[in-house]
């Protein structure tokens, strides 16, 4: 079957989708967006977390056919998503500005996306969402397998909870397993992102 849906702000079409296929499979294998990871396929690990109509979900548990006509944001589109959100917030605080350029991230851009944070190893550049930069700065990434899911989940929490307590952070990330870091640096990263978000306002 064919599935039409919006991915990172742009309409996309997936063809030859098997009826029992998951959204995760469609993203990775049909649209070439391997950012969302497949680690368990049973909702246990959260490494496949994406936003479906704004809500964080495990993409391995969403049937592809269920996303018809709906809106998905993956880690590849997170930087642009965060940028537009920040812009919207600015526009709302100031007067309503014009919205420029086509919104979202094209498939080619998303496929080619690379972390370019201001880190000695990752090189210079400003194309990271604040939460991504915070993960780099806090050293919250080891093997990186859990990172995309954590980024999507943490970014969503900060959208609703600008000043999270540690308990809020733990709760929001309780569906994301990390087998490397022991979580402390991840906690640091989210606290850092929250603090920076506070300063920016």
């Amino acid at each position, binding site marked *: 079957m064919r599935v039409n849906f919006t991915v990172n702000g742009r309409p996309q079409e997936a063809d030859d989708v098997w009826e029992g296929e998951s959204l995760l499979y469609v993203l990775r294998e049909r649209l070439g967006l391997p950012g969302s990871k497949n680690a368990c396929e049973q909702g246990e690990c959260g490494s496949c977390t994406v936003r479906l109509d704004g809500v964080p979900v495990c993409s391995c548990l969403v049937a592809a056919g269920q996303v018809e006509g709906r809106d998905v944001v993956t880690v590849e589109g997170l930087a642009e998503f965060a940028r537009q959100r920040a812009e919207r917030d600015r526009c709302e605080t100031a007067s309503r500005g014009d919205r420029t350029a086509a919104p979202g991230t094209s498939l080619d851009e998303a496929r080619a996306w690379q972390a370019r944070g201001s880190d000695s190893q990752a090189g210079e550049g400003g194309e990271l969402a604040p939460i991504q930069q915070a993960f780099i700065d806090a050293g919250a990434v080891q093997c990186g397998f859990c990172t995309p899911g954590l980024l999507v989940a943490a970014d969503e929490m900060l959208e609703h909870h600008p000043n999270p307590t540690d308990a809020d952070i733990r709760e929001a990330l*309780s569906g994301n397993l990390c087998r490397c870091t022991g979580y402390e640096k991840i906690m640091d990263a989210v606290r850092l992102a929250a603090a920076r978000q506070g300063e920016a306002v």
Partner: protein
Amino acid sequence: MDFLRPASWEEALAAKAEHPTAVPIAGGTDVMVEINFDHRRPEYLLDLNRVGDLYEWEVGQDSVRLGASVPYSRIMESLRAELPGLALASHTVASPQIRNRGGVGGNLGTASPAGDAHPALLAAGAEVEAESVRGSRRIPIDAFYTGVKRNALAPDELIRAVHVKKADGPQQYSKVGTRNAMVIAVCAFGLALHPETRTVRTGIGSAAPTPVRARTAEEFLEAALEEDGFWDNGKIITPSVAKQFADLCAAACNPIDDVRGTARYRRHAVGVMARRTLTWTWESYRGARRASKGAA
């Protein structure tokens, strides 16, 4: 496999009538696991995501009509006052991502003895609204679970909503597992005090082939509370009453040994949870009594 996408409830019923083997999928948190692992290859998947009514709830005079697909996260946020037991149970479901998708309809459809919502529904008192093209009926929750992963639905029926009694007193929910998140219950216990009718109701999860109530324990506690005028004098429940209640709850279990725990452990844990939830609910009943007296 065929993917059926009804756009309305009527279309969903028609599809289920035409294809009684169709597997309904809403949050997908059970069904997709089975498909991903090749444990199940249904001929038809019946997607309920586009049936908007299933995501709505109405707070009525005596009960809440909870749409089958209202996600657990919404129950936690919006129905804490009306359905405190179910809200607590919802909070123990897996993780935020799962709570954003899963709802009570799925728990009921799967009817696993370990489903988190069951003890809370049994304790609060509930009816399942099932419908087919032949008509609609309400199944009392006590009659809904018919065996291990079996329920009272006919092949052409779908769950539309659950009517859960609004709390008229304190409710508690307790679950034993190896960690706080992402855990299937080793066993679980729900307790609701109903001061208006001077009754108590229980629900036990994962400690018998189906979710069950501990009826003998309920009757014992009701009699004990009545006899000593506890509802009126608000005294602390005597330890011997609490112990007897806990023992009777443990005796209501019919558990098995499995990877998550032994039968003996489950029985013991249910007794402990029964005693604790009784203490918690009774304390808050006494607190509420004092507060209303103070205000009067």
